[in-house]
């Protein structure tokens, strides 16, 4: 096994284990911590695909930003309720059946379609190309994204403001 294969299997096991922990652990706070692990593992997948820039973005936005927001939300709501948030699951069997069916559908599609694309040789760092694309053909999209982020965050602020 090559180094890449070993890395892939290690990251895959970590990713799937932490993903399962996110949906199965009864403590919501622990679920967020497992989600952080799953997000970092996703970043490691990006690293395996030779995209260090996306790895950095993933760490900054997700592992840094999203996890922090969710932890804040859990703490706020637990304080609001004044008791521990009950975190039980329901319809476990039905959920498992539906999820397994979706996976079987996707896997069946993957097996039927020939995807034996050989991996191209090592690429240069794509960061420069991404940057050029963002201010070139995707400049308008980038600006729209900025508008969307401002609108969404203002909306979140408006929703979560205190009444006083």
């Amino acid at each position, binding site marked *: 096994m090559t180094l890449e294969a070993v890395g892939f299997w290690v990251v895959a096991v970590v990713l799937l284990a932490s993903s399962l922990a996110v949906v199965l652990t009864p403590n919501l706070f622990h679920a967020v911590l497992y989600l952080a692990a799953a997000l970092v593992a996703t970043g490691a997948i990006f690293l395996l695909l030779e995209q260090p820039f*996306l790895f950095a973005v993933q760490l900054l936005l997700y592992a840094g930003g999203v996890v922090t927001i969710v932890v804040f939300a*859990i703490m706020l709501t637990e304080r609001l309720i004044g008791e521990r948030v009950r975190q039980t699951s*329901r319809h476990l069997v039905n959920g498992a059946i539906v999820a397994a069916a979706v996976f079987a559908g996707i896997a069946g599609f993957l097996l039927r379609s020939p995807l034996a694309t050989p991996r*191209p040789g090592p690429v240069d760092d794509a960061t420069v190309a*991404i940057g050029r694309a963002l201010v070139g053909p995707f400049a308008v999209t980038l600006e729209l*994204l900025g508008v969307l*982020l401002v609108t969404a965050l203002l909306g979140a602020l408006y929703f979560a403001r205190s009444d006083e």
Partner: protein
Amino acid sequence: MIGLSSYLVLAALMFSIGLFGVLTRRNAVGILLGIELMLNAVNINLVAFARFHGDLLGLVFTLFTLSITVAEVAVGLAIVIVIFRVRRTVEADRLDLLRW
């Protein structure tokens, strides 16, 4: 050699796990966590296809989906906090204000 389908199967597994979480969690925040898992699985697909086809578009798209997801989480959690304030509950089953 790890091929494209390995990454796709991994992403499909992660997507299914996230879907399972969305379907089974009672807590609205837990449902949001499941949605996060599903969106991440899609990002793995985008990056894997971009890498194996040597196409920059997938990487740019991943950046956009990442940012939009962060905005979605912020708005979603703000809505959850408002719902907590109004209804004093976290359980998605009991949020039936719009149900007839």
